């Protein structure tokens, strides 16, 4: 099968009649968003072909830091021994606003349940203390506008820091796996952060990934996002990165925030099929989710063989969640965790604070610790109360078929996509910040370098009422070739003279240096 990006979309559109009908019905609700999210490919305008050394700097970048013998394998592929690291950070003194779902009360009953169970006393569990993520940890992922302080307030820094404490514990071998049961969540936060989207300001998992790379030289990481909402922020941040496999299952984007996460969102040209979206029909029960896991998620994971598996552990697929419409149960979640065996799980959403969270979290903690979770269940749950609809099962079969095909053909897809492009890949995006009511338009451009992933630039304009910043961002991947890095540094320098931007940012992950420049005041800040 020979597929270009456009053709993939055609293939995906050719799903059963039913889906087309659904699409038509849901059109008014989501039409606006879909149109906004439409990707625009722009052919490279740069006709100059660079001559590139056959060997050299690129390789240097790739082999930095990491001795071959130290490549680890995810716990999924290892014996199940050791303790489970746990940070419980309910942020009892922080809320987005007093009645917001993301408020002080969110993990209160979870606290009651897990403390009453005595989980922290179990010899299988090691409790850790949170710390603040450093600005540099955040700058490795985000372009915060105007600065990190504005987007990552103390609670955000702590929530991100929780994952980093656990990453250290895991990499030092103190624990076999870990669960960051912390708020606020992060998976809707994208690379450029103008404000809060979907209750998130900064992306905890992405910060964790970059930290693991920088500090421990981890390269191949899989993120499995089990929140009911599409993990659009995490997807966007690693869209062009073939080292990070991002798999998200979620309620179909035509029926829920953020309105994305369709199968045609497969990744950037060099990372096609390293983003796997699984849009599930509303009301999918345990049975359906486990069918998807067994038939699609696990085969891909086992084939990818990551060094680490991270789980964005949202709990809002639960049948009582007030913001979604799925039918997942505590037993379904605990079993998911046991089967997936993530190295680190990070809490995302989940707003059924009384009916689901106390039980789901108890179930997940027990499952991670390898303990019996069979007695954890919701008071009103009876086995068999939710049945998979036959029609939905056909949709799941189609998803499995299409995405397995994409995964199998990934190298071919990349080859095809890259051969069609010139020196740059460009796309325009429109991003809506539901919490802060900001509309952002972006043009993203990736250098199609034959030696490395290529540097990226983002031209972003935010609108919030009559105000909003215009910024220009340059990102150099950690394993970038020296040539790309030099070019990117020049691009940054050139833009610092351009006063139409409020800020110009440089994210040099290779050198671990992060700069922001205000062309009007001519002040540069370096991290």
């Amino acid at each position, binding site marked *: 099968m020979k597929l270009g990006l456009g053709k993939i979309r055609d293939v995906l559109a050719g799903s059963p009649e039913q889906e087309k009908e659904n699409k038509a019905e849901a059109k008014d609700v989501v039409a606006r968003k879909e149109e906004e999210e439409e990707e625009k490919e722009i052919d490279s305008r740069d006709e100059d072909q660079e001559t590139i050394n056959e060997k050299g700097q690129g390789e240097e970048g790739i082999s930095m830091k990491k001795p071959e013998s130290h490549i680890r394998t995810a716990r999924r592929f290892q014996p199940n021994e050791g303790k489970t690291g746990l940070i419980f950070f309910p942020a009892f003194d922080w809320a987005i606003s007093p009645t917001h779902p993301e408020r002080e009360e969110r993990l209160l009953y979870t606290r009651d349940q897990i403390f009453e169970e005595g989980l922290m006393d179990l010899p299988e569990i090691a409790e850790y203390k949170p710390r603040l993520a450093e600005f540099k940890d955040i700058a490795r992922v985000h372009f915060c506008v105007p600065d990190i302080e504005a987007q990552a307030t103390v609670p955000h820094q*702590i929530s991100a820091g929780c994952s980093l404490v656990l990453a250290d514990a895991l990499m030092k071998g103190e624990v076999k796996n870990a669960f960051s049961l912390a708020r606020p969540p992060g998976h809707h936060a994208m690379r450029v952060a103008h404000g809060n989207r979907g209750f998130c300001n900064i992306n905890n998992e992405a910060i964790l990934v970059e930290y693991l790379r920088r500090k421990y030289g981890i390269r191949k990481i899989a993120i499995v996002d089990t929140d009911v909402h599409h993990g659009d922020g995490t997807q966007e941040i690693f869209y062009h990165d073939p080292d990070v496999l991002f798999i998200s299952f979620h309620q179909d984007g035509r029926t829920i925030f953020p309105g994305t996460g369709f199968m045609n969102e497969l990744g950037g040209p060099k990372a096609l099929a390293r983003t796997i979206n699984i849009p599930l029909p509303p009301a999918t029960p345990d049975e359906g989710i486990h069918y998807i896991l067994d038939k699609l998620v696990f085969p891909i994971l086992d084939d990818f063989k990551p060094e680490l598996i991270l789980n964005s552990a949202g709990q809002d697929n639960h049948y009582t969640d007030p913001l979604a419409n799925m039918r997942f149960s505590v037993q379904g979640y605990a079993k998911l965790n046991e089967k997936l065996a993530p190295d680190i799980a990070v809490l995302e959403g989940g707003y059924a604070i009384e009916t689901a969270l106390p039980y789901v979290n108890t179930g997940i903690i027990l499952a991670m610790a390898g303990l019996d979770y069979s007695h954890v269940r919701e008071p009103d749950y009876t086995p068999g109360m939710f049945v998979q609809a036959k029609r939905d099962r056909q949709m799941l079969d189609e998803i499995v078929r299409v995405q397995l095909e994409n995964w199998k053909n990934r190298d071919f897809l990349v080859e095809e996509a890259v051969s069609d492009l010139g020196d740059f890949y460009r796309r325009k995006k429109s991003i809506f910040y539901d919490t802060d009511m900001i509309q952002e338009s972006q043009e993203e451009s990736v250098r199609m370098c034959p030696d490395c992933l290529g540097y990226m630039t983002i031209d972003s304009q935010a609108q919030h009422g009559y105000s909003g910043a215009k910024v220009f961002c340059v990102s150099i991947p950690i394993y970038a070739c020296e040539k790309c890095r030099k070019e990117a540094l020049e691009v940054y320098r050139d833009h610092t003279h351009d006063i139409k931007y409020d800020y110009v940012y440089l994210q040099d992950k290779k050198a671990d240096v992060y700069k922001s420049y205000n062309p009007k005041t001519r002040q540069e800040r370096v991290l």
Partner: protein
Amino acid sequence: MLIGIDVGGTTTDAVLIENGKVRSTAKVPTEPRNLLESLISALDAVSEGVSPGQLERVVFSTTVITNLIAEGKTDPVALLLVPGPGMNPAGYNFPDSFILKGAVDYRGREIQVLDEKEVRETAALIKEQGFSRAAVISKFGQRNPVHEKRVKEILEEVVPGLKIELGHRNAGRLNFPRRVATTMLATAAKDRYRDFVEEIRKALSERKIEAPVYILKADGGTLPLEKSEEVPVETIFSGPAASTIGALALTPRGESSVLVDIGGTTTDLALILSGEPLMASKGAKLGRFLTHVRAFAVRSIPVGGDSAVRVIASENASAGKKKVSVGPDRKGPAFCLGGPEPTPTDALRVLGISSIGDLALAKEAIAGIAAELGKSEEESAELIVDKATEMIAAAVKGMFLEWEQEPAYRIWEVLQEKKEDLRNVVGIGGGARGLISKVAEKLDANPVIPEHAEVGNAIGAAVARPTLTLNLHIDTERKEYSVAEDGDVVKLHTTGIKNINKMRSEDAEALAAELLRKRAEHFGISEYAGEAETTRSEVFNMIRGWATVGKLFDVSMQIPAGLIPEWKREEQA
């Protein structure tokens, strides 16, 4: 005059205090078979020549409960557990437990009814098996004890004469397994403890001592003897508590100290941070059971003056290097005191740091070690002292680290810099004092060996003041409150609070203060109610949909551990 008596594992120490100063001290060997006798002979020794009428207060600390449990001499208890959803109760490691159906949730709502038929059958089984004591504990029973109470009724009906304790009356903090253990131990020890108290009372009345008698708790607070029968397990670990309060009494106000009590086999450590003894963040561990009993954060390490010293191969053994090890076992007294093996006490004697024991014997002991190491006697003795003090210093550092790394659940707790400058290393107790200055050196602090340090524990008992805690939980939607310490769930309208829906934190704190005052009165320590401080006051708005349907308040108050005003600390320190 005040009397303090600490019944320790090897000796029973007593002190008589007059006008805020130590007037006399006594030390008698502890007779493990008869603690009461040891206690009484120490009392007689220290109060010789004093008329009973002059005594104002007598305080004991005792290992009675610890011993009963360690020796497995407590009475068998049938445990009836109502765990509800959560961990598989089959994983609990409690003896004689019977699992019952039924469940209450975190808000105190009944989510599964009790199966009364099952309860009756279980009761019949308990009767058949001949239990005379039972404890009933339900998960979240402290939020709603309806199941515990109903099971008790049925038990009373089916098994007449059965002595029954309920979980919510014994420990109200969150943590079901700890509540089970605490209630089980309280039930098991209750009768024996009562007998012990009765014998003390008899002995005192024979001596015509009418002064109020108190017992020391693990949190360093005193409790009137007769009231202590209600909470026998709180007297566990009162030995280390006595030493900690002793260190507090013998050092200047407000300073940070580590208390080092070097015994024969072990060294006990406790921290005083800016003048306040550090409490363990969770309850004490008793035998193999984690409990809810509030206790100081004490750590015991297997290094003591009589620890056996050996020569072992070094880790980098390739060079054929050898090094000394200290402990963890004790083979007997120090060699210089006629024991079988070289010990740190012998090393101190050789170095001239202490004058305990026979020098020639000490030299003989160290000579053996020196020969193995291929070093001089003096060098070897220094290595031994260095090793022992290094182990103690490392344990102290570990305690600080653990304190700094305690989990935090609020932003301000994460931001709070936990740093203390350790000022004093305080040696309390009789053993191996020579090690204290070396430990202090390693921790960059001042060595302090106060006057009467050898009976510091008894001084601690004598001058400790009462403590009390109160943890109030209010649920305005359910219109009720509960106090963790006594467990009953009470309707809010009985408090006289007018508009329950508009309760504020101040109202919750006022209610807590009122309840604490009543509780202090019950325990006969009203005069200290004014010392109570609020350690936590939190309010959570309960939002359903977009509307506030109620509030949850959590207020914690305590009368912290401290010293009675009669003790003239500044002069002593």
